[in-house]
């Protein structure tokens, strides 16, 4: 990165746009301070790399097209350890390869953002079939933060949010995009620069002699010291002590991974975001995420016209799962419907939380195309 070059680009393209979903991701990343991107060609995520290759150098960032997805994820993680706000984007098959690097990023607590545009195996049809892989696809113990946009506007907003969460918790954050959203053009309103949060991880105030790179409070990430500033930090995948050194210690191992997972799971209520629709008088509820929110809302409109009191819970944060809110809702309704575009995966988690309180019905479609409102409503009508 040549910091001496004068740059002409705008980081924040404020205004109203008619924008491709994949482009909205790029704008969200830049608005949140992204200054390193690595990617490898894969449909339907290509437009993210393409726009990044133009926009990033214009604002003084680094763009690299690597030799594979392993390159992408590892160079993103190392750039992050050098102080960058770094991101990569891929689609399902490429996301497989990245699992390895996501595991490393969570072990060394490197903030980074991964956009996974889900597609069917080998084909670019619509799906949400990676929803479980995004949680625990890598080996080892960690917790993921996964955000699920349902519009181009949300692709912009949640990509920016992903950077802020990654920086706050020093953890990889995944934006769960879909073919449906990535290749759709919609209205996107980008606010003024001052209105967009641009959070940066906490840097240590200690001198190198006193600094311990992995010493942190319970359920918090450690303070950061970038590479090249005399802190001499070892970032290893292996079990590491608070000083970063490799030294097997059974109790230390337990404590380290309690903290690495606890900083996400114990802060669940702070991290988790959701929106509710028509919940005031609802006696049953659809829980869904991503593009499926759209036909689900239309189906609720149909149901309401027929006098059925159905509400909607839209999960913005898919992982960690919003356990508190889901449990609260389950206590107050007679049935939960889970709408998703796969063989029925996330429904298992919803069942785990809801079944003591109310029955759960899975409404799935796994045909490479999003549900129609009629399909969802007719599935509901079979029960209600």
């Amino acid at each position, binding site marked *: 990165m040549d910091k001496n070059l004068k740059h002409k680009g705008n980081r924040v393209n404020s205004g109203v746009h008619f924008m491709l979903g994949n482009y909205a991701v790029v704008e969200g990343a830049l608005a949140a301070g992204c200054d390193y991107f690595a990617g490898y060609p894969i449909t339907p995520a290509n437009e993210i790399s393409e726009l990044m290759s133009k926009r990033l150098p214009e604002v003084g960032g680094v763009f690299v097209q690597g030799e594979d997805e392993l390159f992408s994820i590892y160079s993103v993680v190392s750039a*992050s350890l050098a102080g960058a706000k770094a991101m990569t984007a891929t689609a399902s098959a490429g996301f497989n390869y990245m699992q*390895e690097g996501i595991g490393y990023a969570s072990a060394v607590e490197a903030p980074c953002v991964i956009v996974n545009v889900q597609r069917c195996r080998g084909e670019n049809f619509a799906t949400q079939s990676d929803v479980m892989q995004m949680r625990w696809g890598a080996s080892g113990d960690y917790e993921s933060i996964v955000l699920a946009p349902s519009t181009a506007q949300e692709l912009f907003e949640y990509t920016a949010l992903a950077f802020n969460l990654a920086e706050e918790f020093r953890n990889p954050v995944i934006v769960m995009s879909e073919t449906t959203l990535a290749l759709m053009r919609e209205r996107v309103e980008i606010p003024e620069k001052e209105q967009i949060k641009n959070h940066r991880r906490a840097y240590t105030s200690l001198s190198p002699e006193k600094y311990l790179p992995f010493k942190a409070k319970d359920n918090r990430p450690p303070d950061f010291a970038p590479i090249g500033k005399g802190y001499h930090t070892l970032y290893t995948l292996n079990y590491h002590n608070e000083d970063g050194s490799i030294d097997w210690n059974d109790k230390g191992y337990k404590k380290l991974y309690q903290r690495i997972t606890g900083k996400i799971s114990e802060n669940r209520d702070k991290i988790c975001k959701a929106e509710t629709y028509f919940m005031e008088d609802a006696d049953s509820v659809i829980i869904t995420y991503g593009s499926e929110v759209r036909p689900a809302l239309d189906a609720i409109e149909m149901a309401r016209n027929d006098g059925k009191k159905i509400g909607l819970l839209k999960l913005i944060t898919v992982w960690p799962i919003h356990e508190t809110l889901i449990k609260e809702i389950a206590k107050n309704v007679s049935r939960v419907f889970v709408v998703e575009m796969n063989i029925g995966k996330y429904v298992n988690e919803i069942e785990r939380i809801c079944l003591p309180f109310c029955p759960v019905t899975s409404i799935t479609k796994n045909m490479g195309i999003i549900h129609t409102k009629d399909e969802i409503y007719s599935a509901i009508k079979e029960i209600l």
Partner: protein
Amino acid sequence: MVQLKTNPLRKYIRNEKLPHFFCPGCGCGQILNYFLKAVDDLKLDIEKIVTIGGVGCTARIPVYLNTDSLHGVHGRTLAWATGIKTYQPDLKVVIFAGDGDLLSIGGNHFLHAARRNLDVTVILVNNFNFAMTGGQVAPTTLLDSVTMTTPFGSVEKPFDACELATCAGATYVARWNTAKPVQTVKSIKKALQHKGFSLVEILSQCPTNFGRYALKTGNPQKVLEWIEEKSITKIKAEKLSENELKNKFILGEFKDKKQPIFQGTSLFKEEDR
């Protein structure tokens, strides 16, 4: 009373992490020494050096160095190096990789980093086998060698890492062995000062695994003697026929060239304004 002196290179070591984990007679300790001698001679600022190791015996070298280091993932060293070097070009990035790490699982990253002329130094420690895992065949194992996964002798032709790097586009390439400390240090110094992708391959003895299985000796000296017997300098090699060079290790400097370095795939230039 004899006055004990501390090795002047100890200042670059995480002393509290000693003793190291290398087997007695392993070449990694020597190579760690050669590298630090080069750093010390050049008076490089250790704060600006990032050392990277993947997985394997060689990959452990950075664990003992008092630098910023990345470690613990097999084969991804050059992907890490690219992220750091393109984002912070002022840093000097040095990769310590074994033959398995760099040429087997990391082979593709190696080719592309060399092709791009990424401005980093790779110190390849070639001990002809996967040593940490117990002595399996590697892409560098010589034909007919017995290893833990070639009990009847290796049937695959090995890679020549220096030739590979040269063809791929590396701009400084040299090979020595652990019995040639002066030449090795000299080449590491040149590599560290080189602007572009530099590779120094060091043939090294692994008495515990390669020695015991392929050479039927666990004696480090005997393994090193075997390497020395097969080693021949580039100048001498030029006079020999292809047949005479069979199973020989050619030592020397193979490439030293100035070429534009990699700073990113898409570069914004002032004239594009």
